[in-house]
């Protein structure tokens, strides 16, 4: 009985199973692909010369639009890199003639609309988005931002503050560093394609620069407007004509973008970053443009090598070796200038070299042997079957039309490309891989912690270091005029007199100071015992006792060493600069700067003098009006994590040391906040210090 029941159930399920046989994927038959609807945007030219592309879509009660402007950050002046991006940001945030940016924020967000402005390498945009019923309000603000930006100073300051923080933060996340450094190497660090914005650039950017950049490039004939969404195209055309009727600015045609000129810079590069457990790499060379006749073959070749889970690099380096989570090769073609061919990814520090070698092997393979029939078929199938996703939304057709027009591509380029994809052969893949993936041109950029590498990076080639140090901002040095320079010299002379007289100071050959410094809790809360010994203008030695051990620094002004409980190392550039600064700022010598023709002495306030050297050192000294003695010294220094900070030392408790008055109390401030307080124990001059004693390692 029981058995029968079970049999019946089994039979039942068997019958069910037969009725619904599950095929394998190879047995599946597909109906033909559904019809793709390709919308045709309405094109027109407004009477002011602005070209418009309109495409209706009534699925949702939304409207959006954007102008594409012929400009780009390639037009940044070399001494004001970053200007165009700041201009674009402030174009929106700085408001219009009639309304501040803050007012626009409220007006737009009250109706859940937006107007934005952006800058790319070879184009700029101003865009809007709104619910259908707010179309007119959003369009009116869009027009004002585009045609009447006010560039208010407070928002320029905001953008520059943000850009400065961006520079300070650019080495925080390792994945961006490798790509950025490869870009600089491939395009040349001194070209608009490869340079990066530094503090000194930002210091040069002013409101009139933003206005001049805007005026040069933002005029009707230099832009194309696309509008998409829930509207009637004929009505919209009239609306736009009316809206922009009074904007008739003209400018000469915009010149072509600069050419890419950098020669190949192959080799192995390393940027050291001690706080990571992986090595991030970006390996590449200059690539090509989309209009290249081999574009389709190159994409197929790069895809077989490293795009998606089916690719060779993913199969080998990720799946088989387990060396990487992220690894990809990409033929990144540009519209109008050579793009790049790149292999990017990351692996644990230990397997850095093995991973690079595995990549090199795969690269060799695709250049030596034809790909298999299946690989080619899979890659083409993926591209051709997925081709329909180019038409997922009508908005894609609209922006494609504008882009093709902007870069001078034929209207049917997407279909030409489809055809070319279908025609790619194994011979094509081999030919383009040999011609365009050139190992001898490859720059191998790594960012990581070489102490943990399993093998020496030099295994794969001679290693060239990349210095990630962020250049400090150029300090504002007021050159002043003869009068202010004379006043500055007078203030120095008065201070020298107050300290004991110029002759006394000039007779100083060396000095030694011991102090005990209590740091504020925010600066570590520790107490440091420190002895500084200086001979002449160059020889510098400082010994410190810290809670975690002793440290010593020595410099002859050009090189030096740094001794820590962990060992001795060559002096890093930033510390060398700090040492030179300390020597330079020593009161006995800095007050005699009037005698040194390589220094500029300039009064920048009633009782303030700036002293600067030709090689980049600078200090501001405030003098006590009553006594004439130096009250404080202020200067910039690489602070924690390399970001520059403002340091101020305030002097008090003046005592006599062999006929020279010196401060026995020094309060240290960093960026306006108290960081510590030093009490001097002894301060001596001319004790006959010897260079060899200073240079002696502990």
């Amino acid at each position: 009985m029981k058995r029968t029941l079970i049999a019946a159930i089994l039979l039942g399920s068997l019958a069910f199973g037969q009725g619904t046989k599950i095929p394998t994927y190879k047995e599946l038959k597909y109906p033909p692909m559904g019809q793709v609807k390709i919308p045709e945007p309405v094109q027109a030219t407004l009477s002011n010369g602005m070209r418009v592309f309109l495409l209706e879509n009534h699925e949702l009660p939304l409207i959006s639009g954007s102008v594409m402007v012929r400009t780009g950050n390639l037009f940044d002046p070399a001494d004001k890199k970053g200007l165009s991006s700041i201009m674009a940001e402030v174009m929106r945030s700085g408001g219009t003639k009639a309304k501040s940016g803050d007012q626009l924020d409220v007006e737009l967000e009250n109706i859940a609309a937006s107007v934005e402005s952006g800058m790319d390498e070879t184009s700029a945009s101003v865009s809007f988005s709104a619910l259908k019923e707010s179309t007119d309000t959003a369009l009116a603000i869009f027009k004002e931002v585009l045609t009447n930006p006010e560039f208010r100073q407070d928002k320029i300051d905001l953008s520059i503050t943000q850009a400065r923080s961006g520079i300070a933060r650019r080495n925080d996340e390792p994945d961006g560093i490798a790509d950025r450094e490869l870009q600089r190497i491939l395009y040349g660090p001194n070209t608009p394609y490869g340079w990066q914005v530094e503090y000194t650039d930002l210091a040069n950017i002013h409101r009139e620069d933003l206005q001049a950049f805007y005026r040069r490039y933002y005029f009707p004939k230099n832009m194309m407007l696309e509008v998409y969404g829930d509207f009637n195209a004929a009505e919209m055309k009239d609306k736009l004509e009316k809206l922009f009727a009074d904007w008739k600015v003209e400018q000469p045609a915009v010149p072509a973008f600069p050419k890419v000129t950098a020669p190949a810079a192959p080799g192995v590069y390393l940027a050291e970053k001690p706080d990571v457990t992986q090595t991030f790499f970006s390996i590449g060379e200059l690539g090509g443009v989309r209009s290249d006749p081999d574009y389709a073959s190159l994409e197929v070749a790069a895809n077989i090598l490293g795009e998606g889970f089916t690719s060779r690099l993913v199969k080998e380096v990720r799946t088989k070796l387990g060396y990487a989570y992220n690894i990809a090769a990409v033929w990144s073609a540009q519209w109008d200038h050579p793009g790049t061919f790149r292999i990017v990814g990351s692996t644990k520090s230990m397997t850095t070299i093995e991973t690079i070698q595995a990549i090199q092997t795969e690269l060799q393979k695709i250049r030596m042997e034809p790909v298999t029939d299946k690989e080619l078929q899979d890659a083409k199938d993926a591209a051709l079957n997925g081709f329909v996703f180019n038409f997922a939304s009508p908005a894609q057709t609209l922006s494609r039309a504008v882009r093709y027009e902007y870069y001078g591509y034929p209207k049917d380029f997407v279909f030409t490309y489809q055809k070319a994809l279908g025609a790619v052969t194994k011979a094509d893949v081999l030919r383009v891989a040999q011609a365009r993936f050139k190992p001898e041109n490859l720059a191998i950029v790594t960012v990581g912690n070489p102490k943990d590498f399993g093998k020496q990076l030099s295994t794969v080639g001679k290693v060239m270091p990349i210095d990630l140090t962020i250049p400090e901002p150029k300090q504002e040095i007021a050159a002043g005029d003869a009068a202010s320079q004379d006043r500055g010299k007078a203030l120095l002379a008065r201070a020298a007199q107050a300290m004991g007289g110029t002759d006394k100071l000039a007779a100083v050959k060396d000095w030694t100071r011991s102090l005990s410094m209590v740091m504020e809790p925010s600066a570590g809360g520790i107490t440091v015992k420190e002895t500084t010994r200086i001979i002449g203008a160059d020889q510098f030695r400082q010994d410190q006792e810290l809670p975690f051990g002793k440290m010593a620094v020595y410099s002859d002004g050009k090189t030096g060493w740094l001794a820590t409980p962990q060992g001795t190392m060559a002096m890093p550039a930033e510390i060398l600069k700090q040492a030179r600064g300390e020597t330079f700022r020593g009161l006995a010598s800095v007050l005699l700067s009037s005698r040194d023709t390589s220094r500029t002495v300039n009064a920048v306030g009633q009782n303030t003098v700036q002293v600067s050297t030709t090689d980049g050192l600078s200090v501001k000294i405030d003098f006590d009006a009553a006594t004439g003695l130096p009250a404080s010294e202020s200067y910039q220094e690489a602070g924690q994590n390399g970001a520059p900070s403002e340091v101020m030392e305030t002097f008090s408790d003046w005592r006599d040391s062999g006929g020279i008055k010196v401060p026995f109390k020094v309060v240290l401030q960093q960026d306006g906040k108290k960081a510590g307080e030093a009490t001097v124990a002894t301060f001596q001059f001319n004790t006959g210090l010897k260079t060899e004693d200073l240079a002696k390692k502990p």
Partner: protein
Amino acid sequence: MRVRFLLFLLPALLAAQSLKDFEKKVTKFTLANGLTFLVIERHDAPIVSFHTYVDVGSVDDPTGRTGLAHMFEHMAFKGTPTIGTKDWAAEKKALDKVEEIYDMLEAEENKGFRADKKKVDSIKADLNGAIEKAESFVVVNEFDQVVESNGGVGMNADTSEDHTEFFYSLPSNRIELWWLLESERFLNPVFREFYKERDVVREERRMRTESSPVGKLVEVMLSTAFEAHPYKNAPIGWASDIESFRRTEAEAFYKKYYVPSNITIAIAGDVNPADAKKMAEKYFGRIPKGPESPRVRTVEPVQVGEKRAGVASPAQPFLLIGYKRPDQYSADDAALDVLNDILSDGRTGIIYKEMIRDSKIAVGAESIPGFPGGKYPSLFLFFVAPSQGHSIEENEKAIDAIIERMKTQAVDAESLQRVKTKLRASLIRKLDSNSGLASELATYEANYGDWRKLFTELDDYNKVTADDVMRVAKAYLTKDTRTVAYTYAPAKASAAGDAK
């Protein structure tokens, strides 16, 4: 006056209209085994998107096996007895052999200091040999290859604290391929290449967490803020747990949680609901009904005082402040969302205006209403990146001052209305892509038992008053229940300059 009134009302009308229109496009059905489907018709283009939402997340990771839910997510791409193998019978034998040897290895290693090192090494060598043998039967990444060569795009998956999701899109004429593959991967998954994939996941942790200052900080935030509830473990898992995962553990996990009643699938695009029902029966009807999965019982105890945690990092400073808040089913959920938007949505958010725009003490500052998840009591989180030259302390004080104001001053009517208008508009903007629709509807259906909640939660928002906002700020943004995590510069080996 009249115009104003209309403008005020319009967004509400629009949303109601969207729901009515939308209901016509959505078909919901549940199979006998408990698996729920949502079909959203959108025939404009011959493409279709799939979103599989599984009600299992890292909160369900077994003790000592953090990251296992995420590890299974990786294994769901490894194929089946028919996909990804050259010879299943032989491969199965080889895979079993791997486990047999691994058992021996663990037995020896478990002896701790008494373990025989030579024996361990010798078993390890055997293990590597067995793994290599098993790999010799593998057709690498065949599952991915089939999807890709059929034009599949956007294929990926995601594991969070609360859920696991799998998604991609196909040309709609190939929809049956998805029915086949998706049902097979959850009916007959084969955990091949498990130990290599374990290495890959370990690399993922190195990349996302260990090498990223923010990644590290978030991990410390979670493990400090939560003492008992599994939200204390990030979904990626702890390094040593990952390094010791066993295939058998992942299989047991899969059997426990990948039962049909935990799965909600949304299909959006060029799809016919009647065909979908037939296909669902044919392919997913095969999956047997399973027992209900166990659920997390641990309740995070009430926090009894502020906690602080520092992470030494050479990066520029970051600050996180997390306040304990109830789960997403709380009656206060809508008010907390509105409070969040008033604080940090767009350029009119208070935090942006005061800290970024006006005082310029931060380059990035925002709040997140529910972190790291919503199904269990979580955190109302503030994230701040101070601008250059400005400190963590200064920014913490600024956030404190803003919070204090939210507790004592009612938000003005214009700001409140603005937030509600933006919430409605953002819903409409979510409806314009297949993949977005599939993801949203599957998520709402799985989380609230009804996808309509995506639309009806606007009513909840609309009911929130200025008093409600003040009340929830007072109730939850309290010092004693918060955790502050921040980075600070490590003591540096720099002598000159730092101390004078």
